């Protein structure tokens, strides 16, 4: 039986399908494994890779051409993000810049600033970081206390930022500081672009539970910032910060691809170790940790493991469908809003459940220090915190999506 009627799938012009094919082909020819991004050598290699991406036209796909972008749209970004994860491309150190710092500048910085900052940001010539969180302002961002005092044609900044991603390597910080009186909450906040290579800046890497130093503390002592590096007007800081966060909330098509990869890797280990499989035919790479289900007993209940994996298959698929739906809405022109909290709550719990099932099945050796699973465990666990703690996300859902009283 055939059905008439219009179809709900979005009709995507052929050019996008060709774009996907071109991206996949280019990535297959160019992606290679880079040294660990958490070393100086590795970061330099990732920076060079960003340059390669940029020069080949794959960076800033939705950015206007005047800033060195490709002049495409959100669907180009989504297609490339998925192909990139599928090709197992290196970590994008420009991720904060591309996803939200740059777009926020496009909407809030003046023409001279945009011309000065955006092209080098895109080409990874200048690395930017976000300077919002402070020791006393985590979930409660309006408690920001770093002071900026206007003196002559500039500001003098004193305070401390923390959890600054790539702070160790960053040249410039998109900072939220207090120009008004202390304790005024959302009022009296201002955004500054702070040169982190100048005097008065002390960057101290934070050693995290997994031994890496992706975050830093940034101490600012009498740091002079010219007024030409103020983003927007004095007192507009909160509105600009919210604008920035709205870009951060856009759909990330790479997220479901990473979750799929996490689950597929676990499934491959279970399949290799599970009952009825010939261990001799195990084709794992030499040196890879052995997957041995007998670690939890020879009478492992295969049906129970299948059930747990199957639940994760459904959830990973649901995450992808939801992202597909959000990409379509964004492509139609809908602004991302509070519903990004739905995604954050769902995906962070899902990723953690995948990692923890691996830990349950294979024991603590799986997450021994230095293994990829060790990094993944702690990184996934942090997903319940960074970008807004799960409790804050639930509050956003309750307030803005359900309309519950405060």
């Amino acid at each position, binding site marked *: 039986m055939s059905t008439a009627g219009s179809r709900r799938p979005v009709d995507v012009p052929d050019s996008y399908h060709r774009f996907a094919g071109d991206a996949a082909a280019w990535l297959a020819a160019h992606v290679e494994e880079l040294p660990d991004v958490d070393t100086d050598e590795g970061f330099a290699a990732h920076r060079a890779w960003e340059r390669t991406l940029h020069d080949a036209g794959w960076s800033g796909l939705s950015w206007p051409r005047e800033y060195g972008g490709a002049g495409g749209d959100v669907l180009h970004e989504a297609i490339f993000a998925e192909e990139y994860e599928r090709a*197992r491309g290196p970590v994008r150190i420009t991720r904060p810049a591309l996803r939200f710092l740059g777009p926020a500048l496009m909407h809030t910085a003046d023409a001279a600033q945009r011309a000065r900052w955006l092209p080098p940001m895109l080409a990874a010539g200048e690395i930017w970081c976000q300077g919002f969180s402070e020791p006393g302002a985590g979930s409660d961002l309006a408690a920001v206390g770093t002071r900026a005092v206007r003196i002559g044609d500039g500001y003098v900044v004193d305070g401390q930022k923390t959890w600054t991603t790539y702070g160790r390597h960053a040249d410039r910080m998109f900072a939220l500081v207090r120009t008004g009186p202390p304790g005024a909450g959302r009022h009296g906040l201002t955004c500054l672009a702070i040169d982190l290579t100048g005097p008065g800046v002390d960057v101290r890497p934070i050693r995290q539970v997994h031994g890496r130093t992706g975050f830093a503390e940034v101490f600012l002592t009498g740091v002079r910032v010219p007024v030409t590096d103020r983003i927007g007007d004095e007192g507009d800081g909160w509105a600009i910060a919210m604008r920035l966060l709205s870009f951060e909330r856009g759909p990330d098509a790479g997220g479901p691809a990473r979750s799929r990869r996490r689950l597929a890797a676990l499934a491959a280990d279970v399949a290799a170790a599970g009952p009825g499989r010939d261990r001799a035919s195990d084709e794992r790479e030499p040196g890879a940790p052995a997957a041995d289900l007998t670690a939890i007993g020879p009478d492992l209940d295969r049906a129970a493991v299948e059930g747990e994996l199957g639940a994760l298959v459904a959830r990973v698929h*649901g995450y992808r469908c939801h992202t597909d739906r959000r990409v379509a809405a964004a492509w139609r022109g809908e602004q991302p809003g509070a519903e990004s909290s739905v995604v954050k709550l769902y995906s962070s719990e899902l990723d953690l459940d995948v990692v923890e099932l691996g830990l349950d099945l294979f024991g603590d050796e799986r997450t021994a220090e230095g293994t990829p699973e060790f990094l993944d465990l702690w990184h996934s666990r942090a997903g319940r915190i960074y970008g807004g703690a799960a409790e804050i996300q639930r509050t956003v859902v309750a307030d803005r999506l359900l309309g519950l009283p405060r």
Partner: protein
Amino acid sequence: MRSQASRLFDPSAEQRSLAEAARPVFDAAGRAGSAAAPGGPDPAGDPGPPGPGWRVLGESGLFGALLPQDRGGLGLAPSELAAITEQAGRVPVPGPLVETLWVAVPALAAHDHPLLARVVDGHAVATAADPAGRAPDLDVAHAVVVPGPHGDVLLGPDLGAAADPVSTADRLERSFRLPTTAVPSGPVPGSAPGGAAAPARGPADRPAGHPLPLLLDVGAVTLGRLGGAAYLVGIAARLLEIAVEHARTRVQFGVPIGSFQAVRHRLADTHVEIEIARSAVGGAAVDVDRGDPVAGGTVTCAAVLARRAFDAAQRHCLQALGGIGFTWEHELHVLVKRGHTFAHRFGSRRELERLLGAGLLDGELFQDTAASLRPGPPPPHI
């Protein structure tokens, strides 16, 4: 795997208004249904429609949703019907609604069956069994679609006398099990993981009945499972709506209980599960629109997520309502009991999860991901 660009789906304004337009029909059917006792043959002598609400639905033309317009139907795509079916779940009425819309009408149409017109206008009842042989309204059905190991078949008429009633708490359900001799034996594709046999019942020979083509290129099990998932999402969404309204207005300790974090977070978590399930149903429905071979798997994912959403909704919403949710006159228990029916029809969550897990371990799912450059989880972003 299809690329991102070819997986996008998004209801157009027209399609959204279609689903909205169906709401009053279900509301009217619900009112008609509650005015009379559900079930039992029609006193006018017609062969027993499930109730007055059923007539309202039949008169709306809805039952012909998947029939092409040139055959008197609405000519909707499965993805459009999924959105409408979710609305139906918000106002459940007695009768084999999901089975009629998604399975029986396409099956009768495939055979150009003489019953088709009467089923579409609500004057005759057809139904569909799930792989376990359970089906609603079998005693009054003139035809029933039964999934089998060698394909789906159409049985009937005169099943009524042999149907075994199954007891249920669902006020809107008249549940039956097919007589064992009528059920095809052997595992039904998509019904049991890892080739494990479905519960054996009846002789091994093929049942009497008319073999059906693969309905909409995916078959009766996948269609029934998808329709049920959409319906279950609707039930869960309605439960949440009731709980949110209650949390806004119920005052304790001098404030609405919806201001307490313990209540807010439970309801927020429920919303998250419902939204993801809704997206999965939409995505799977689009796969069915296309007759995509992945539809069997993606519909199963959607069915699992709909069951998870309902689990969260019934647990948290009943809690938020407190004592009033446990009273007979409140509609909550009707929805929860209806949800329990659909959380098990066409496979329980446990069965479906195992089906997916077995598929994953056998390398049938995620092939593209598993075949990538090197094994291992993704590297940290920070």
